[in-house]
């Protein structure tokens, strides 16, 4: 039972990592897309995602299963970003997609953590990736002139079709406690800070809905 749950989580994570790794590899390979000043950042993110892919593949293989095959991706999101093809003039869209993918990754891993509660090795590995995705997300958000943390349920300037990535991020009830109602909360940012201070999970179904448009 746990073995099949773990495998489902690992295969799901692998799909997300395939998407990210492919996206950054294509970005780095596209002449004139990423400005010189930003290549160090995207170089390290691309490296990380490629390592996540190979690590997840070997965890799946070790567990006796076959890693899913890397699908083909459509970075126009089935036409929602018409004409996007890693062209030199499209860096703003590349950055926007990077923010969308990283913020999705954080919520996706978070949503699966409790399903690994009985598989400590998989849990440790997944969490060690989860927080790195959060580091990536903060960096990309800040490069776009945004806060490194999610504000309310705001997608910032991302297109409307990405709203599912941020829905529910404005939750401020944690462990049954209303954080803005805590004694000190009003003096320390109130409901706005309470929403920022906790990232929210997404279910497997919610993440699938978010990434399906990117599957060719």
């Amino acid at each position, binding site marked *: 039972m746990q073995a099949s749950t773990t495998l489902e989580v690992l295969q799901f994570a692998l799909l997300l990592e395939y998407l990210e790794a492919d996206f950054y590899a294509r970005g780095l390979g596209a002449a004139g897309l990423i400005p010189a*000043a*930003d290549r*160090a*950042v995207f*170089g*390290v*993110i691309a*490296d*990380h995602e490629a*390592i*996540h892919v190979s*690590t997840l593949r070997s965890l799946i293989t070790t567990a006796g299963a076959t890693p899913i095959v890397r699908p083909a991706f459509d970075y126009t999101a089935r036409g929602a970003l018409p004409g996007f093809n890693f062209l030199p003039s499209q860096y703003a869209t590349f950055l926007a997609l990077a923010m969308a993918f990283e913020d999705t990754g*954080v919520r996706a*891993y*978070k949503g699966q*953590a*409790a399903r690994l*509660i009985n598989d*400590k*090795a998989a*849990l*440790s*590995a997944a*969490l*060690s*990736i*989860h*927080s*790195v*995705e*959060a*580091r*990536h*997300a*903060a*960096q990309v958000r*800040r*490069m776009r002139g945004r*806060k*490194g*943390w999610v504000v309310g349920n705001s997608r910032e300037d991302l297109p409307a079709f990405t709203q599912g990535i941020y829905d529910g991020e404005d939750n401020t009830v*944690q*462990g049954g*406690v209303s*954080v803005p109602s*805590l*004694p*000190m*909360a009003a003096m*320390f*940012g109130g409901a706005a*800070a*309470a929403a*920022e*201070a*906790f*990232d*929210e*999970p997404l279910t497997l179904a919610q993440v699938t809905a978010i990434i399906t448009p990117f599957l060719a």
Partner: protein
Amino acid sequence: MSDRPTLVIGDGGLLTSLRTRREMLRLMAVGGVAVFLPSMLTACSDDNGVGPAAPGTGAPLTIDFARGDIAILQFAYALEQLEADFYIRVVNAFSGAGLSAAEQAIMVDLRNHEVLHRELFKAALGTANGFTLTPTYPGVSFSNRLSILQAARGFEDLGVAAYNGAAQYISDPGTLTLAGKIVSVEARHASAIRDLIAPNSTGFAPNAFDDVFRPSVVASAAQGFITERLTLANGPSTFVQGPNNNG
């Protein structure tokens, strides 16, 4: 000596970081040297005379892991108290610290987030299981931008590794998810702080995997900033390492 590997230590806070200590031990093993910059000695002079009590010299504070998830919440509460107190001090010392307006805005956000984490754990634990720590910051200068940022980096990275490592001892799925909600925000903080130290470099995420530290490793690092004598009773005997295999 010029061909020996050298570790430059300009900030006393670095000495309490596990990475720096490991780096020092590695260097000593190969005949390397550690260089202490004047900035660090200046910072240490704050400890002379009538200063705050030294770390670990106060009353004992025991977190008993036999208590299960309560102990994990207490452990997290201790770390969040430390972080919240740190950023409150940073914000209160803005006038002389040389942080830019943008950096100050980040510090206010971090202060608010950490205070709210602290207050949530305080409420969850109640008076019966709560406690109040007395943080102390040997080697940290709150009037020095880089000292503040380096200390913040240490706290945030430690927080990430602490939650990542404590998660395996949580038995309630909701509590595990709650830890996940907090740890990614700590990682976002760590990323931002690291980017302030080395903008647009690879520094925001130094590894493909974050560290996963066992509670005793976290406690000994945190002890460097806590006056009370922190003890983990009935600490877990088994620990499942993360991919970095360094916890």
